[in-house]
């Protein structure tokens, strides 16, 4: 199984060193291979152990693996026409695939890891490989942001390791070397002798993850980095790398909830409300697509964390899946939306001709409206379930009024974001000059795959599956 999982990445790594002209076409095809092991994992009996106790595929990781591999395939599809939209050298192109392969190895490791240390190693590998992807865009700003990402990412990752060491130290007296294993930690969470030490470790780990996802107070760094890099890289960031961070948050907070439910909830609650408060106003001032989408990504990550911490596992996973499909789709479409200039929002949705153009226009408009959770979108349902979960947890602790107040504030903040997106949509659709924009087949194909995946996410079958995840 492990060979199947890593094979596409290794093939890509080897191919990227070859100088053949055709490798440009072979590489995206190779990435299609990613899908098979993910689907196979999905149909195997779970929890399925890939390597002993180290890599275990349970419901959660199988789901996230599947979502990530779909996103990865679409990103590589769209990547093949990147050269037609922006200037990119052949060397940078093969370099992108080389680091994508390393990225994928790290990501597989961290998603499937049942071991805190392995999770960290995978995450670090993935982070470091993305540093170089930013630099495929050969501008001064991208170089600066690559350094920025290197430094801030390294600090965030180090904080995560710091927390992991403290958690390990807190659980080692009762579990020995098994204190690294997520599942045994979860089983014995109640027996941990020094819960305070564990909680400090959890808080620091979470802080590292939140910095990595661009939460308060590091709201803008991710937006700047995504602005500086090419759009497929931004799609990778928001679609896949953040899922790797998120699955870590899911696993750590699960254990922390077993230690003390209320502490985790209050910590995540305050942090995420603060994040959404700041991000909503930042979104209101956003002037280009990349920053807009990136900041909205931060907002959705905060919502997912909030729903998960308040016990709405179903809501969090649904929101997570929807975001993981919608956001890369939007990032990929920015390549075309911005083809007449970086800061030209007005008229971006006009001037599409032919059947490809029409499909592109339709899907992008749809995605743009679903990201602010207009009813048919999965996000609408997930937010409903999520708020229900928040009310439920408040009922348990007799803070119902406070919680309803908080939800109202949250809704006001979300409506600010909603207003901004609608305004942008109107300006894209009805203002500005009509300029002809070229759309390529594989980009439309990528968007169609995303749309189909979103549709599948809304079927009762997948709802059933998500409810079963615990």
């Amino acid at each position, binding site marked *: 199984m492990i060979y199947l999982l890593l094979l596409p990445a290794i093939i890509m790594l080897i191919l990227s060193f070859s100088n053949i002209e055709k490798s440009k076409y072979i590489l995206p095809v190779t990435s299609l291979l990613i899908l098979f092991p993910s689907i196979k994992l999905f149909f195997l009996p779970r929890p399925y152990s890939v390597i002993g106790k*180290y890599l275990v595929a349970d419901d959660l990781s199988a789901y996230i693996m599947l979502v990530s591999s779909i996103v990865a395939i679409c990103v590589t599809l769209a990547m093949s026409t990147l050269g037609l939209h922006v200037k990119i050298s052949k060397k940078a192109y093969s370099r992108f695939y080389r680091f994508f392969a390393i990225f994928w190895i790290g990501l597989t490791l961290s998603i499937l890891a049942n*071991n805190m*240390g*392995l999770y*960290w*190693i995978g995450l*670090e*590998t993935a982070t*470091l*490989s993305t*540093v*170089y992807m930013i*630099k495929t865009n*050969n501008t001064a700003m991208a*170089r600066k942001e*690559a*350094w920025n990402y*290197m*430094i801030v990412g*390294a*600090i965030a990752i*180090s904080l995560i*390791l*710091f927390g992991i*060491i*403290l958690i*390990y*130290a*807190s659980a*080692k*007296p009762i579990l020995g*070397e098994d204190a*690294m294993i997520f599942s045994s930690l979860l089983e014995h969470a109640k027996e941990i002798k*020094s819960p*305070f*030490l564990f909680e*400090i470790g959890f808080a620091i780990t979470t802080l590292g993850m939140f910095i990595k996802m661009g939460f308060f107070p590091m709201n803008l760094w991710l937006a700047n980095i995504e602005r500086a890099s090419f759009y497929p890289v931004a799609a990778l960031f928001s679609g896949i790398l953040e899922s790797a961070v998120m699955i870590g948050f899911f696993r750590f907070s699960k254990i922390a909830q077993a230690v003390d439910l209320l502490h985790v909830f209050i910590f995540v609650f305050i942090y995420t409300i603060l994040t959404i408060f700041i991000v909503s106003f930042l979104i209101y001032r956003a002037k280009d697509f990349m920053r807009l989408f990136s900041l909205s990504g931060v907002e959705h990550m905060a919502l997912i964390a909030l729903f998960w911490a308040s016990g709405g596992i179903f809501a969090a996973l649904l929101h997570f899946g929807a975001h993981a499909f919608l956001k890369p789709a939007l990032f990929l479409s920015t390549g075309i939306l911005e083809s007449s200039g970086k800061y030209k929002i007005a008229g971006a949705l006009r001037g599409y001709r032919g059947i490809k153009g029409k499909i592109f226009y339709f899907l992008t408009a749809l995605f743009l409206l679903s990201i602010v959770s207009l009813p048919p979108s999965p996000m609408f349902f997930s937010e409903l379930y999520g708020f229900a979960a928040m009310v439920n947890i408040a009922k348990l602790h007799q803070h119902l009024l406070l919680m309803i107040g908080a939800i109202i504030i949250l809704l006001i903040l979300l409506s600010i974001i909603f207003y901004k997106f609608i305004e942008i949509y109107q300006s894209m659709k009805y203002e500005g000059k009509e300029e002809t924009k070229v759309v390529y087949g594989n980009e439309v194909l990528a968007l169609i795959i995303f749309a189909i995946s979103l549709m599948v996410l809304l079927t009762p079958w997948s709802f059933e599956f998500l409810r079963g995840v615990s």
Partner: protein
Amino acid sequence: MTSFLIGLFIATLIVALFTMRLYRLILWYSLNSLSLALLAITIGYSINDNTMILSGFLTLVLKAILIPYILKKVSVKFGLSRQIKPNVQIHYSIMLIPALLVFTFYLAEPITNMMVSNANYVAISISALFLSLLLMIEHKNIAPKIIGFLTIENSLFLLGTTATGGMPMLIELGIFFDLLMAIVIINLLFHQEEEEGLE
């Protein structure tokens, strides 16, 4: 002996904070890793833990010799500025560093109370973490920031050895692998810039 080495560890870090020359800074980093490696070897020897002795030797080879050597080579090759002036002036950091130390010792007190063994070393390694963050903050140049990142790694390694009595072997090796990868990436990031300069 451990106490001596741990003192050396934090002393080299503090001197690194006052350094204004790049090569000197790399030297202090190397000495910092050297004391860390010796510490891991002595602790591993005293508790009879082969894993820790091995990771101590790895630290010695990798962090004390190889990485400083590579950094020196990189900085010579790409002509990095050898004068690194901290943003925080030295007479402020004279006041800042003791304040930071007292603060972190105070901060670490509840954690150290929970620790089973080597409680005080945990306090030292947490303050080393904060000092290396200060090293990253107070410099504008990129090279001291890299050194700061590496010293963060060192202080986390110290925390791992003293607080938990050593992490599992696989994890240690993975962390070393990632460190090497970070160095490769740093090298590549510099490399590209040189290419730009030539064109």
